[in-house]
């Protein structure tokens, strides 16, 4: 019985399994799809439809041609289709679960849709930045917004670089109104007036060169909002502070298509000396038409500038007014006039203590109170024809400076009153032209300049009444073109340069010294071939400038000629995606044409005298450098190692005589060598989740140079080790925080001057925080701490802190309150070892100051 029961149970289980399998099999269809050659067809769409043509299920064949259709209830027919094959329709047969299909190859039949490929809105190489997208709380001027735009960097003077390269120019509504003073526009134009910043990358501003000469420079164009285009706009600022200080400013701009003008004026006594307004910025045109102005002979005995914002220490009264006007003469030609007047009167009180080490160590202490006045008038007129056939630019400019310094000096030698008057005048013409012959481009550039400076020095009680006059004429003309050599460019340029110096010193106005006249001139011819070789993953650049200089000093009645070669090679190579290597090697020979030759000693100030350089001198510098970089974007960390070695040989060196009553710098004509090398590394790590960025760097520099003073001569081996650490945190949208700390140690080796290593330790740290409790309100605070080792183990610390708030009450009106130097630091001190010598410097600081500023925009 039991065996029968068992058999029945087994049978029941078997029947259940069979039934289950059968019922399961009926919930899906499967099969294989092949083509007419019997090859399985992949990716055939198998669709199961109901009798009412509704899609019930679908599947795709795999590479074996197999498919499985599930949820097949109420399925009526299956369609097998694939592009390039004839579709097949099979009716579902009751109880049939397997449907194998053979598809026939056919034409690709598509319901072809017309291809529409509308142009991308980005126009050529122009990027359009919407100002509103970048403008953040607290951004008042367009410069503040430009700083936030990717790839744009702005230096302290207002000069703009894009992707690391100086831009061509800043246009306003397509016109170059400002020339090399575009910083005045970007620093004063309200951000709210600008709708768009157009960055024309690789922009060739010269139409005749467009498409023929590539440039990696960009042009910025400021597009104004519609309601700012047809009327003058600008702002008026009135700022008043404690101790009777003020800072007032007005800017008015009108930017029409035919005429544009910008007027700007300011007046303040809060430490802003408008340096950026007076200096302007360097532009691309200055590549071959830039020559430094000669150094003036008169220099203040103490011309030290502390590494602080002038607002902390400067007691000034400064005014400026500038006018810029542009008129479009035709579609392609413009006439531009720029003018500036500037006046600054500054009172400075500072103290220095210098110790010059020698057998008879000399110490000089000076406490000085000076009143310095600067007056500048400069004007510029430029005509530009920028057509598709020809480019012509001529710019006439002039600049007159007048510096007056009255200084009262107390030293251990007694009291000295010194008066300096310096009036340099510069007149110059710059001309650029491009000739497009079709097959070749030839570029001409030229500068002619006349420089005149009259300098007077009067000092008591050792009556010095001295005056010097310098007249200099300078010209440089260049012609250049390029050739294709083995698929790479060979650039060739030829430059001819001439300079004539005429110096007259009143102290030497007698027959023996030729009426104190020093007349000199030189001709310099330069041929500069440059060959660029680009290869996969890198490039090499070979330069071989060849120069020939003919130099003549009238008082010696002889001349000197030299050939100079300055070969260099530059190598860049990506070793792999994360490592890159670059190296440079060069031998550079360079004639010193900047220092004005003078046959006699020059009086620099009441106690300093310098031997003039009366012969041609050449500097030769050998340099080798290398850099290895690593960057992982996966882990966001990078490091960089850089090493450089240089050796410099000069034809002469300076020997100094330091005495309590005077300093004398003598030119000694013997070979002077200087060596230095340095090694630096930096590491940066970005912690994504915590929004924290930490960077660290360390640099060691060694310098060996010849020092000769008070009869002792030896090589000084100086060393500096610098370390820095910076932390930036921006996780919260309403709080941004940055901390930077740095320290350095300097020391020297034993030498003939001292057995001491002169070790000094310095430390600096700055913190900055911005808080935005409401959209219209910005609170900020910054603090910097500096600690200098004044003498061994004796530290002087300075802590500066500012707090402020800005409140935009309405769209046109805003109010700021600023507290500067809230810890009321009254004295700044620092020391430095320069080789063997020690200098201590101190300057009194402006007291704590509260300033209220109202701003009205029109």
């Amino acid at each position, binding site marked *: 019985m039991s065996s029968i029961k068992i058999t029945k149970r087994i049978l029941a289980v078997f029947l259940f399994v069979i039934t289950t399998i059968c019922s399961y099999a009926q919930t899906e269809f499967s099969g294989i799809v092949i083509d007419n050659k019997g090859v399985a067809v992949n990716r055939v769409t198998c669709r199961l439809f109901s009798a009412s043509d509704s899609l019930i299920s679908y599947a795709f064949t795999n590479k074996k041609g197999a498919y499985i259709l599930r949820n097949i209830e109420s399925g009526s027919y299956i369609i097998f289709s694939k592009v390039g094959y004839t579709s097949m329709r099979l009716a579902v047969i009751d109880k049939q679960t397997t449907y194998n299909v053979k598809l026939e190859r056919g034409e690709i039949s598509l319901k072809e*849709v017309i291809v529409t490929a509308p142009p991308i809105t980005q126009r050529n190489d122009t990027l359009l930045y919407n100002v509103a997208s970048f403008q953040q709380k607290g951004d008042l001027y367009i410069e503040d917004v430009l700083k936030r735009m990717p790839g744009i960097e702005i230096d302290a003077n207002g000069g703009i670089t894009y992707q*690391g390269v100086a831009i061509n120019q800043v246009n306003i509504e397509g016109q170059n109104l400002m020339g090399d003073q575009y910083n005045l526009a970007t620093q004063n134009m309200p951000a709210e007036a600008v709708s768009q910043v157009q960055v024309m990358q690789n922009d060739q501003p010269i139409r005749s060169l467009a498409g023929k000469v590539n440039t990696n420079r960009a042009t910025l164009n400021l597009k104004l909002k519609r309601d700012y285009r047809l009327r003058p706009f600008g702002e008026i600022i009135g700022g008043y502070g404690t101790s009777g200080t003020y800072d007032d400013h007005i800017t008015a701009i009108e930017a029409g298509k035919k005429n544009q003008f910008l007027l700007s004026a300011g007046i303040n006594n809060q430490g802003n000396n408008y340096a950026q307004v007076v200096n302007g910025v360097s532009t691309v045109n200055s590549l071959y038409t830039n020559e430094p102005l000669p150094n003036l002979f008169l220099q203040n005995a103490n011309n030290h500038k502390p590494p602080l914002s002038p607002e902390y220490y400067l007691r000034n009264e400064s005014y400026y007014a500038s006018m810029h006007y542009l008129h479009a003469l035709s579609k392609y030609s413009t006439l531009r006039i720029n003018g500036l007047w500037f006046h600054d009167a500054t009172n400075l009180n500072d103290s220095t203590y210098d110790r010059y080490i020698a057998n008879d160590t000399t110490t000089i202490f000076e406490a000085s109170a000076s009143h310095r006045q600067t007056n500048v008038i400069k004007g510029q007129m430029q005509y530009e024809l920028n057509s598709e056939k020809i480019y012509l630019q001529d710019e006439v400019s002039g600049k007159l400076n007048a510096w007056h310094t009255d200084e009262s000096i107390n030293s251990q030698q007694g009291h000295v009153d010194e008066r300096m008057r310096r009036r340099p005048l510069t007149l110059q013409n710059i001309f650029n032209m491009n000739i497009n012959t079709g097959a070749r481009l030839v570029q001409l550039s030229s500068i002619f300049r006349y420089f005149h400076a009259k300098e007077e020095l009067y000092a008591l009680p050792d009556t010095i009444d001295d005056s010097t006059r310098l007249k200099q004429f300078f010209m440089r003309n260049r012609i250049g073109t390029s050739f294709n050599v083995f698929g790479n460019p060979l650039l060739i340029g030829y430059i001819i340069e001439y300079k004539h110096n005429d110096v007259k010193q009143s102290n030497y106005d007698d027959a023996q010294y030729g009426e104190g006249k020093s007349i000199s001139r030189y001709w310099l011819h330069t041929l500069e071939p440059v060959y660029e070789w680009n290869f996969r993953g890198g490039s090499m650049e070979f330069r071989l400038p060849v120069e020939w200089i003919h130099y003549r000093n009238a008082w010696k009645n002889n001349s000197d000629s030299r050939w100079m070669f300055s070969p260099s090679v530059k190598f860049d190579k990506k070793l792999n995606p994360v490592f890159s290597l670059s190296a440079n090697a060069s031998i550079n020979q360079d004639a010193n044409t900047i220092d004005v030759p003078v046959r006699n000693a020059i009086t620099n100030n009441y106690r300093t005298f310098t031997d003039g350089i009366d012969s041609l001198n050449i500097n030769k510098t050998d340099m080798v450098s290398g850099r290895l970089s690593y960057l992982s*974007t996966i882990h966001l960390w990078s490091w960089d190692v850089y090493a450089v070695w240089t050796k410099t040989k000069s034809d002469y060196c300076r020997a100094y005589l330091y005495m309590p009553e005077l300093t004398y710098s003598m030119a000694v004509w013997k070979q002077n060598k200087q060596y230095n090398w340095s090694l630096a590394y930096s590491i940066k790590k970005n912690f994504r989740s915590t929004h924290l960025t930490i960077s660290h760097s360390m640099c060691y520099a060694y310098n060996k140079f010849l020092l000769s003073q008070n009869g002792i001569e030896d090589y000084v081996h100086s060393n500096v080790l610098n370390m820095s650490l910076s932390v930036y945190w921006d996780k919260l949208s309403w709080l941004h925080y940055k901390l930077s700390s740095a320290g350095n140690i300097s020391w020297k080796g034993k030498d003939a001057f001292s057995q001491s290593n002169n070790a000094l330790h310095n430390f600096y740290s700055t913190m900055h925080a911005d808080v935005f409790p409401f959209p219209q309100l910005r609170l900020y605070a910054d603090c910097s701490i500096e600690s200098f080792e004044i003498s061994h183990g004796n530290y002087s610390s300075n802590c500066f802190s500012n707090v402020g708030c800005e409140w935009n009450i309405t769209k046109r009106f805003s109010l700021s309150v600023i507290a500067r130097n809230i810890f009321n630091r009254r004295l700044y001190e620092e020391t430095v070892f320069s080789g063997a010598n020690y200098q201590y410097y101190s300057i009194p600081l402006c007291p704590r100051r509260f300033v209220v500023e109202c701003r009205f925009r029109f």
Partner: protein
Amino acid sequence: MFSPDGGMDHYEKTERTVYDTAKINVYYTLYFLADSSKTDNYTKGLMVLQVSDHYLRFGDLYRIQLDSINDFCAINKKNAKKAANDFNQTSSKVCYGFNITSLVDLDNETATVQLQALRKYQYTVPLPKFDWQITEGDSIINGLACKRAVCRYAGRSYIAWFAPSINLPYGPYLFGGLPGLIMCLCDKSNNWIFTNSGIEVARSNRDMYLYSDKDIIKTDREKALSAYKNEIEDWNNLAVDIIGLRVIKNGKEIKPDTNYPRKPSNMLELK
């Protein structure tokens, strides 16, 4: 390269591996929000899906054209200058915000993706399975009747409109697996929108290739997407090191501070 006197650009032939020849090209216009908080600022691109029997390739149409001009210039160096304008024009149209090329191996069901912000990365994964739900909804796109389907993939919910009358179970990028060509694909927040703008039997742009230069970092999907995200968000800072951006201050080239705020990244694949 800067040449004041009229130098010439340097072109290197693209290194590539050609896998197949396209039979059909499907074009998609892409709109995407580089910053999801700025909903009116779409970036635009034109993409092409190349289809053969064994492979699918998806990438930027102008990038293919740019590669072609570049290779012409690299081979014909003497005539390179004449094509420089075309090169610049085409380059300006490439959608560098979505610099991704994918190749699907239909036989082995794998997908290889190459992506580049500052550096080039490549990873290979099994072809993703999309769990499409066909839902109620009809539309007509480019004159073709379309059905609606939804799915969730890589952190986003997608709506696809597919044309059952086009027997191509494919779509933009790696998307596919519907019984008809995807004519429109967008995520529910409209961050990424692919709209079909044409289908044609391939007569040009036929090479289906991946780049094969040595600079490509082959890694896994997680690391590649992480690096891509880092490079988009920290582009300004990382470019200083990778491209070697330098600032000229006081006449000296110096490395700028790299404390730019992070840019938003609104990647197609969030995870």
